[in-house]
């Protein structure tokens, strides 16, 4: 089965080619959507096969590399089109193909009747292929194909409604921000490659070879530089501070895209990359600290913005940024498997949330369309009380919200709590730990608050929709609700795979599964870890209880403000107008970037063109030409154009020269 790993990205590629090249001719939505979904589902089956085979193997044999064909070989440099199968990549392909299949299925219903239906499925398949390349790549370069490929698909899918200017802008912004990250990725790659090559004559970009040579890497120094560069790449892809502003804008894309790309898979690529190269990252304590701080800060920062948004998808987008912050926090505190675990659970509940919001928007849009209302179908202020009209959507949505809020028993609780605990107890960051934990806990509170605010505003209370449209609201078709139900189930129970040891009910399957991948990293980490006092189980229980309490407080506030006393939010806004404006406008980060980078760049370009190119360079060139013309303007009087003048000078010349030679 391992040998057939190349089939996994191949199926979506076939789907992409069929839909991309012939989709326009096929026209039949069932066939197009069927092909797209089938292809990714086939990949899912192959992935399951690989998972089964791997479970059967002893942990130390769970690494397999498959070279498909040689790619770039030049000088020392060697990169093959090769795939790496190990526990980490298997987790990822399971998530990508599994969630991917569900979202494909969902899209058949959601995108029904859209112009460019085939285009959507082609892009979606292309995305899956890129994402699978990213997670399966056995060297940094194949990963980079996927890395940029998902960026490309994200560009294409955000810009799916290309006639909207905002969509085009958002698409470009996403790609460029990703490119800034790619810049970091490339520099990191170069640094690592060059250092290992020139100092130890190991010229490689292959993960396994780097892992084998990782004991040669120093702690800090060049590794810090390289890993910080890689981390820049990760911030671009995973929307962390400072490159997070593209993700909320990316909500211009269709909702399934937001679910697949901007929640479940692509944005987690940065986390995956750090996990994949954990043995390098852990060698730089400074980088680990930066990652942890950035992660914690993003988690809190994005959560604050999320509290004031009214667009249902934007709330979820900021929530995604915030949750990604958690994952980075986990990575930064050395809790790699916890980070990956949160990645997986987040994929379940966030995909479910997005799809649920899609279902709501779909229904709203439909209803508003019937009465020719131009109200925004995504604005929560126009919703309310939808739970009666859309029970399945409501229940799955609620389950996922509980999961993300960290209520015990649901998947989010296990993963988030593990991260919080690790950030408190990890041996790497000393006194910083308490701050990290504090940020994480505060973000958890805000998360619970804004997620329940979302639920309350959407599904509870009185219906604020255009009265005429109310009767048209109805539950979405099965093709939409089945994925919701599956994901909802996963969101509820997926967490039991990684139950903390503390609870002792189940072994932590997930952590054991990933142990072979992160063993080496833990070993490296232990060389500089500060082992303080052993923290007691009591403390762990206590913190767990505290975080649950915090979440419940958040829910309570949301309940008070949006169900019990709906005038409170208005009062709050009136009391702190500046604060609300700042939060509502995302702390003006976009404007700041425009002011700091975008506009100066444009102005500078304009200056270089008009000022330097035209004025100086061309000025010099034309100036030389004009000088020559000026001189020739003087000399041209010699060229009178009259034959006799020429004859005269010729004769004079002959006479003088002859005379010289004769009389000399």
């Amino acid at each position: 089965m391992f040998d057939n790993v190349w089939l996994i990205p191949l199926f979506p590629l076939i789907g992409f080619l069929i839909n991309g090249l012939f989709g326009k001719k096929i026209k039949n939505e069932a066939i197009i959507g069927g092909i797209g979904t089938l292809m990714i589902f086939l990949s899912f089956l192959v992935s399951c096969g690989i998972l089964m085979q791997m479970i059967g193997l002893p942990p130390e044999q769970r690494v397999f590399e498959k070279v498909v064909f040689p790619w770039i070989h030049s000088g020392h440099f060697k990169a093959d089109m090769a795939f790496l199968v190990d526990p980490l990549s298997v987790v990822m392909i399971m998530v990508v193909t599994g969630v991917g299949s569900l979202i494909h299925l969902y899209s058949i219903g959601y995108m029904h009747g859209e112009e460019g239906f085939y285009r959507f499925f082609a892009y979606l398949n292309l995305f899956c292929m890129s994402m699978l390349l990213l997670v399966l790549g056995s060297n940094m370069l194949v990963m980079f194909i996927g890395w940029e490929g998902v960026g490309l698909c994200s560009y294409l899918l955000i810009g799916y409604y290309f006639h909207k200017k905002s969509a085009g802008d958002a698409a470009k912004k996403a790609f460029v921000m990703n490119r800034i990250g790619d810049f970091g990725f490339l520099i990191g790659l170069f640094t690592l490659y060059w250092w290992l090559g020139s100092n130890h004559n190991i010229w490689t970009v292959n993960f396994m070879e780097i892992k084998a040579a990782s004991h040669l890497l120093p702690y800090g120094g060049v590794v810090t530089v390289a890993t910080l560069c890689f981390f820049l790449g990760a911030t671009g892809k995973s929307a962390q501070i400072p490159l997070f502003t593209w993700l909320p804008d990316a909500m211009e894309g269709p909702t399934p895209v937001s679910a697949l790309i901007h929640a479940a898979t692509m944005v987690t690529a940065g986390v995956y990359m750090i996990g994949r190269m954990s043995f390098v990252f852990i060698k730089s304590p400074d980088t680990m600290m930066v990652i942890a701080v950035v992660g914690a800060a993003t988690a809190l920062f994005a959560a604050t913005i999320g509290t004031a948004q009214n667009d249902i998808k934007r709330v979820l987008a900021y929530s995604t940024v915030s949750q990604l912050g958690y994952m980075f926090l986990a990575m930064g505190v050395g809790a790699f498997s916890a980070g990956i675990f949160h990645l997986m659970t987040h994929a379940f509940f966030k995909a479910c949330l997005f799809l649920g919001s899609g279902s709501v928007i779909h229904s709203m849009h439909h209803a508003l369309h019937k009465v020719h209302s131009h109200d925004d179908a995504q604005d929560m202020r126009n919703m309310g009380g939808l739970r009666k009209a859309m029970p399945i959507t409501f229940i799955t949505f609620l389950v996922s919200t509980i999961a993300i809020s960290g209520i015990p028993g649901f998947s989010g609780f296990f993963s988030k709590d593990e991260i919080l605990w690790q950030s408190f107890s990890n041996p790497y960051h000393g006194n910083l730990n308490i701050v990290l934990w504090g940020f994480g806990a505060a973000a958890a509170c805000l998360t619970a608050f804004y997620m329940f605010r979302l639920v309350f505003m959407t599904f509870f209370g009185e219906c604020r929709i255009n009265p005429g449209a109310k009767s048209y609201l109805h539950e979405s078709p099965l093709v939409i609700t089945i994925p919701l139900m599956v994901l909802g189930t996963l969101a509820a129970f997926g967490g039991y795979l990684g139950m903390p040891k503390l609870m002792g009910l189940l072994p932590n399957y997930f952590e054991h599964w990933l142990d072979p991948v992160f063993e080496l990293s833990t070993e490296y980490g232990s060389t500089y870890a500060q082992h303080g006092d052993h923290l007691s189980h009591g403390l762990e229980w206590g913190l767990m209880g505290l975080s649950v309490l915090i979440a419940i407080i958040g829910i309570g506030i949301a309940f008070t403000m949006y169900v019990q006393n709906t005038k409170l939010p208005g009062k709050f806004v009136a009391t702190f107008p500046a604060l609300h404006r700042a939060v509502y406008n995302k702390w003006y980060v976009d404007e700041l970037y425009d002011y700091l980078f975008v506009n100066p760049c444009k102005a500078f370009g304009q200056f270089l063109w008009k000022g330097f190119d035209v004025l100086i360079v061309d000025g010099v060139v034309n100036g030389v030409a004009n000088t020559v013309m000026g001189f020739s303007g003087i000399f041209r009087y010699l060229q009178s154009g009259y034959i006799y003048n020429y004859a005269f000078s010729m004769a004079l010349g002959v006479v003088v020269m002859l005379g010289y030679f004769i009389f000399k």
Partner: protein
Amino acid sequence: MENLNSYLIVSAVLFSIGTIGVLTRKNAIVIFMCIELMLNAVNLTFVAFSRYLGNLDGQVFVFFIMTVAAAEAAVGLALFIAFFNNKDSIDVTDANLMKW
């Protein structure tokens, strides 16, 4: 025969007169005639030397020069006609398009 030098002197005089003519006159045809005069002066030198040295090569050359002169006359005069057709004049001062 006369002294070689006297022929050469005559030839030199004719050549110089021809030069002056080319330089002073404005009528293209007259200029052309002066050039013929210069050519003839050279011809005379050729024949005189040929005779003096007892070698006929010079005279063969004169023959060629005459052919060239004939060709020149044909083409040159055709040019003048074309020029006259355009400018209604044969004055070389009117042919000044080559200016700058």
